[in-house]
């Protein structure tokens, strides 16, 4: 589904991603972990097409197409969803309206007619229960005056409503209390399916207790320095990122290698 090869990216003059290789197949859940400043959010934003980041080398394919040639809105319409680390507030534009516009943009892109107003209402009312949000929040401005946790729930609501093929969640777990973390995790798990892939960008292991990933990658200094199964996350939690030492490309383990290793272990 997603194939990243030797991806280099910079912001202004500073090189942040220094050669990322990653393959994500349908049905898989990948966690990308790493210390602050390692490039995790940059990777998420580059995939979504934020133009303040400049890709200087490498390729990204999404379902066989060159993702880097696509505008952000086209990426979204093709089924890529980025859950923001810091969802922005848009005063005056109601949450409901943004959601409807997003659904219709995608439907238009796929050649479908606009969603019927009643169907939309029914859909929204179903999804909002999953994230335990008050319906009144649908009528408020997008994220306007929302608490940190409410903003993240709202991201999950958008994700559930849009039903993307590839979900990228950028530190969706940060700033959540335990209940909210549980709700957000349930939302993510509800979306897990054999056709869909999920990439979780996170700093902490705690989200991964609820959403158990198939693969964990450690990003440091703009490179993936270690890959493994979900147990890697637990090990990191215990030992800290320092355990892996300075970034070294030699320690990169391909997902294939992990898979065969897991098969050997009977996981």
């Amino acid at each position, binding site marked *: 589904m997603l194939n990243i090869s030797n991806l280099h990216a910079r912001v202004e003059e500073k090189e942040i991603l220094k050669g990322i290789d990653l393959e994500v197949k349908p049905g898989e859940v990948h966690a990308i972990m790493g210390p602050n400043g390692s490039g995790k959010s940059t990777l998420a934003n580059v995939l*979504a*097409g*934020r*133009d*303040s980041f400049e890709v200087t080398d490498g390729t990204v394919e999404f379902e066989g197409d060159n993702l880097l040639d696509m*505008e*952000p*809105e086209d*990426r*979204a*319409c093709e089924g890529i*969803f*980025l859950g*923001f680390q810091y*969802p*922005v507030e*848009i*005063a*005056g*534009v*109601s*949450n*409901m*309206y*943004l959601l*409807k*516009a*997003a659904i219709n*943009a*995608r439907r238009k*892109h796929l050649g479908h007619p606009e969603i019927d*107003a009643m169907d*939309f*209402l029914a859909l929204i009312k179903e999804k909002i229960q999953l994230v335990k949000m008050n319906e009144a929040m*649908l*009528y408020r*401005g997008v994220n306007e005056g929302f608490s940190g946790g409410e903003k993240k729930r709202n991201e999950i609501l*958008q994700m559930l409503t*849009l039903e993307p093929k590839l979900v990228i969640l950028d530190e969706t777990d940060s700033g959540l209390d335990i209940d909210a973390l549980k709700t957000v995790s349930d939302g993510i798990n509800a979306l897990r399916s054999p056709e869909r892939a999920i990439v979780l960008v996170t700093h902490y292991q705690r989200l991964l207790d609820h959403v158990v990933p198939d693969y964990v990658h450690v990003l440091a200094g703009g490179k993936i320095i270690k890959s493994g199964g979900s147990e890697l996350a637990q090990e990191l939690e215990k030992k800290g990122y320092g355990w892996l030492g300075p970034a070294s490309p030699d320690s990169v383990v391909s997902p294939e290698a992990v898979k065969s290793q897991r098969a050997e272990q009977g996981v």
Partner: protein
Amino acid sequence: MATQSQELEQLVKREYSAGFVTDLEADTVEPGLNEDVIRFISAKKEEPEWLLEWRLKAFEHWKTMKEPGWAHVHYPPIDYQAISYYSAPKSASDGPKSLDEVDPKLLETYEKLGIPLHEQEILAGVKQGIPNMPNVAVDAVFDSVSVATTFKDRLADAGVIFCSISEAVREHPELVKQYLGTVVPTSDNFYAALNSAVFTDGSFVFIPKGVRCPMELSTYFRINAQNTGQFERTLIVAEEGSHVSYLEGCTAPQRDENQLHAAVVELVALDDAQIKYSTVQNWYPGDEEGKGGIYNFVTKRGDCRGARSKICWTQVETGSAITWKYPSCVLQGDGSVGEFYSVALTNNLQQADTGTKMIHIGKNTRSTIISKGISAGRGEQAYRGLVKILPDADNARNYTQCDSLLIGDQCGAHTFPYTEVKNPSAHLEHEATTSKIGEDQLFYCRARGISEEDAVNMIVNGFCKEVFKELPMEFAVEAQKLLGVSLEGAVG
């Protein structure tokens, strides 16, 4: 970020689509202003002696006045002697008795603008076949003469007078004489004095006691003949307990020279009367270099003369090279209410200095001001508002909210709120915000599949929502078109 603002710039650069000139023979007076020109206009309109005297007095006063220079706008000096003060479509001088007699070219022009002039078509809102036809009466002003007025009969049944001001001078001189110039005196300001001297036409509305006007009244202004200043005069009188909603909308054809427009609008609301005055203004703003746009120097004032009366101004200003406009309310009657809702958009080199004045005279008077300014390109915009509480105005209340939205980094927004409070029981609130459509907001929308253009429209529309809500349905559609956005509200 550089490409970002370029893209934004392109988004806001939409070509003016109403730029066409109708080829008509005009009966135009030579440029210049003197007593003879005023006498010519007055004679042409077969006015009574008192009105000619009134005009001449205004002219005498105007000659002693200076053009105001305090507004935050810049333009080369206007040569008032280079302007022609009268232009009438020739075919109208015979006075068309019905729409069939109206120059087909005129009707064609209106059709291009999407104005439903034909009475049958408008009435078809009731009939089957043409859905969504608004229930609106149109008094079309083409250059300086009203050429067609619809719905007269239905309004007449209700006792409502809705006609051109020239006709009102002929048919209802006592009403015109009683109210004309009582809200905006001839000596009020430079442009109002000029208007009083040379006004050529405009609308007159009279709603008798206790009558709720059965439909929205609407005038479409259109400046057509080249280099002709347009000086509209509108007078609306709502007697005790009556209600009226009046819509004013404008587009103008493209041209190269700046055109001066100095209208005067006077509203009078007696006890318990309500007047809602809505404007959608889309005059030619000039090209990207600011060349050729309309100068819109307008005096609009409403007098809440009676107790518990209410006047509400709603305006959507997207056109004109320069806008100088402060629709105001004089709250004389005890318990009277004044409201001002405004959206002003400046793009390219457009300049707008607009706002309102709320003068609280009576007790328990209330006013609300919601102003939304949008600046794009190199547009400059100023909100200028005065809230004045006079000594006798016990328990007066005002709420003011001024919000500015900036698109790109070359535009400007300024707020000049003035308050004068002379009664300690007054209660005033003022809120102001300035925001910018940020790259992060646009990216957020785009990451949800919404194109940048739609995202800008959505955000601008959301910003203006509080004002759009105040517009009558028919006009909300137009405002929507003007800002190039689909309104929120289908759901939510």
